[in-house]
């Protein structure tokens, strides 16, 4: 080629001696991120979808959250309770990008097919339809809650403790307790 330039490999400087250590550290971080991904990807996407995000947006939000987790860990960030960290970041990403997310209603949620995990293989179609109808009623009831009540109840349903919910939603623990109580009583009335 006309503008070709020749590099001299034998005179080039060698990589820094710290390169290998950095590589090992980065690989450990990568492994940790992927472990978290395998564990939390589905419930995290479920959480976002339950709050009103469509499947594609939830997928992109979760992807971005895991990239941020990688960045967080590479930067020496706190590794305590990464699950709550992931939910908090995902929640904030979703809130920033999804206008519908700010709404207190989630009645735009698409219909959900009942997962095979919930119904035994022998379950009749009628039982599945009944379960689906029951879930729809619950979703509708939750759709009538305030955003804070809804968020707290869904996180609670995913096994978070009040302290963790407070961390995810940036609320006080007592406020989380109040939201759960009011939300749960409201849903109970509606069912």
């Amino acid at each position: 080629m006309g503008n070709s330039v020749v590099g001299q490999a034998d005179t080039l400087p060698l990589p820094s001696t710290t390169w290998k250590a950095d590589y090992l550290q980065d690989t450990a971080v990568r492994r940790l991120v992927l472990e978290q991904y395998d564990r939390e990807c589905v419930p995290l996407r479920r959480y976002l979808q339950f709050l009103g995000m469509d499947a594609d947006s939830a997928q992109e939000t979760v992807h971005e959250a895991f990239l941020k987790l990688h960045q967080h860990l590479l930067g020496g960030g706190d590794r305590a309770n990464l699950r709550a960290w992931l939910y908090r970041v995902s929640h904030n990403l979703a809130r920033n990008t999804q206008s519908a997310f700010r709404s207190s209603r989630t009645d735009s949620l698409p219909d959900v097919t009942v997962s095979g995990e919930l119904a035994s293989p022998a379950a009749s179609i009628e039982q599945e339809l009944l379960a689906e109808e029951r879930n729809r009623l619950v979703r509708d009831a939750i759709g009538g809650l305030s955003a804070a009540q809804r968020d707290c109840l869904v996180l609670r349903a995913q096994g978070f403790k009040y302290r963790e919910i407070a961390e995810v939603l940036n609320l006080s623990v007592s406020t989380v307790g109040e939201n759960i109580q009011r939300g749960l009583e409201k849903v109970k009335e509606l069912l």
Partner: protein
Amino acid sequence: MKGCEEVSHLPSALLIKAIDEELPGGEAQEVESHLATCDSCRRRYQALRQVSGRIESAVAARQVELSSEQRTRLETELDARELAARAKPGASHVVRRLSWAVAIAAALAFLLLVAPQWRQSVKRTGSAAAAQPSAFEVDGESFVALPYSNPDLPLNTSHIVQMQVPVQSLADAGIVFEPISNEVAAQDRSVLADVLLGMDGRPVGIHVLASE
């Protein structure tokens, strides 16, 4: 069993916290004792538990479709970011940003697809790029100039990224890499290099550090 009128009933908040195991040991014990003797509170407790279970079922029933492609995509991006993160310490604050890994990948793709046409355009217009030196120095490090990026933009020396660069990409950019060892001359190999990024995010120069 005591009638409801004989005891003060437990507030819902307390019952819900008992369900959620959010009460300290002493209070939890008191609630348990009360529920053992108060039909009304026990019924309310059970109703709240039932509603809680229904909410859990509804949340768990949310179907999520997963594909291996999504995980592979994440792995690929993590690889690119970690290559970038192994850049020089002085540049780490820049290269650890997600956008850089993507920018570099895009720039290398640009090498293969657009650069040849761009170079022809430069020749026709007689731009300053044609006079770009074949090698230059930044912070004491020598870089071989790459035949693209806008030469009129100022260099930003903090945008140096250490990464593996395919030998084929270098060849396509007009840079013939001729190491002493015959092994690394193969076109399917890559070399570790410092890549200097211009202000437009495209590589301006390259300093080959070592073969794969």
